[in-house]
């Protein structure tokens, strides 16, 4: 249970970074923290207490494997999710470099020209 609370706290720390902070780099760190919180969430879904790695070694029956191993599906999903996060972070970082070249600042207050 405490892990789930930690995930929710992490998630809202990330949301705080994205919404309240005015510095683009801090916003990107917020995006990153949200990504980590989600990855942790997926891992915890598949976790079981005292579980073993989901690898079928010789000498282990299928029933034994099913009753002991953790769920491998969320772990596979997290791999994909990490790649997606990575590409978004990479893109945001390169975007912020370009923005710094144009405006000379990372401050959103100075950057905001569009009315929305």
């Amino acid at each position, binding site marked *: 249970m405490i892990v789930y609370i930690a995930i929710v706290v992490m998630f809202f720390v990330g949301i705080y970074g994205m919404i309240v902070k005015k510095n683009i780099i801090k916003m990107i760190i917020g995006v990153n923290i949200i990504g980590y919180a*989600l990855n942790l969430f997926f891992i915890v*879904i598949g976790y079981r207490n005292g579980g073993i790695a989901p690898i079928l070694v010789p000498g282990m029956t299928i029933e034994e494997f099913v009753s002991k191993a953790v769920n491998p599906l*969320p772990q596979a999903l997290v791999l994909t999710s990490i790649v997606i996060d990575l590409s978004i972070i990479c893109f945001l970082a390169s975007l912020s470099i370009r923005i710094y070249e144009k405006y000379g600042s990372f401050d959103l207050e100075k950057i905001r020209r569009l009315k*929305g």
Partner: protein
Amino acid sequence: MNLIVFPVILNLFSAFLIALLWKKSKIYSGIACLCFSLLSLISVILLGKYVFQNQYILYYVGGWEIPIGITLMVDALSYIFLLVLNFILPLICWFSLTYMGKYVKSSYFYILFSLISTGLNGILISMDFFNIYVFLEISSIASYILVAFGLKTEELEASLKYTMLGFIGSVLILVSIGLILGKTGTLNIADFMNIAIGMDRIQLWFILGLFISGLALKTALFPFHFWLPDAHSLAPSPVSAILSGIFIKITGFYLLIRIVSNIFIMFSESKIIVMGLGLSSMIFGALMAIDQKDIKRTYAYSSISQIGYCALALGIGGYWGYLGAILHFIFHSLSKSLLFLNSGAIEYKYKTTKIDDLKGIEDKMPYTTMTGFVGMLSIAGIPPFGCFWSKIIIIISAIKAHYYGIAFIAVVVSIITLGYFLKLLRNIFYSKDENPKINEVNFNLLMPMVLLSIIIFLGGLIFSPNIKIYIDKAVSVMENFSYAQIMEK
């Protein structure tokens, strides 16, 4: 049938092929992208026979059956979306051959273009929650980059805003997928629906709420719309045509149809939420579009308004509501792509899209003016053009469901739409200006617009009983189909 994977494979292959071989060449990269998108159109047309013979076709990736592997599925509803998507994409690619020439590294555009097509085709053929999410992210990330493609200051800022909000939308969708996986242990939609019958209603509502808010962000329905006008008006025009014409409709509206009317069928109340979102964005978009200083911003706000019509029709439901939603999707996709391409052609000659700087285009670019005229009057709902039929069906559906107030508001918003488009027509096309330097755009820019406007013009004639049979099949998918039927067979 293996043909189902071709729209995804061809476009993905095109992206890698261009990145490997023709990164240096503007011409070859564009022609390769055009060829592959045409091949994908051909594969979709060939697929049609199998889809309409059977109710749906399935493909098990790697041969793994339903609860274990990833399943791909095309039915009549996703087929119509596939057809519209793959019809518009080659035209936009053809337009870009000349238009994107002014950018330095335009071959990168075609790589990202192919990735967007991959993602959008992939969303339409997936029957697996996580697969949908992955394809959603492929197309979204490519679109974030394409918005900033020109690297001007405003474009960078619009892209930053769009990326942040798109990320939040994806996070909401991913959290609900995580909850689905945690509660049911499956990601397959058909398998999920069988298990979900025995689940707690409050938990399902929570998942559904996260899904609807995530998708509303992607669709840019009213309270979540604020990224759209910047992103869609500042992107290069072909990109705006993709984003406004088909991107928001497939990543948002198509998934919303699936979630509301095929997956969470036990919650008919969710339709009222969708109807409210649609109604508010319909009114808001139309009011904001009146007083814009830039043509592309007007079109962007008009997109919010028209996607509101689609969501409204989905929320009203019933045969007429669903028919109106699908028809409005088809004709609005064609018309809005046409309008953004048209603004691109104007921008190509005049180097600006500010309404005050554009005057008397009719004298210099008569064909461009004709296509713009068709697009604007179509979206405004003037009789011979496509959107007239879809709008009148949406209004009929509201009256049949006894929502007289909503029908009245839909008529009023349609009149407002006509108002701001007539104002645009008078100000930029049919006004006097003595600036002789500008002449008609070339063949590559003109032909995609002419083809699109012919389709829109014939919209009323095409919508004959022969064609209606196919659209009725898609409507019956929205009315009666639930993924649980696949497991029963």
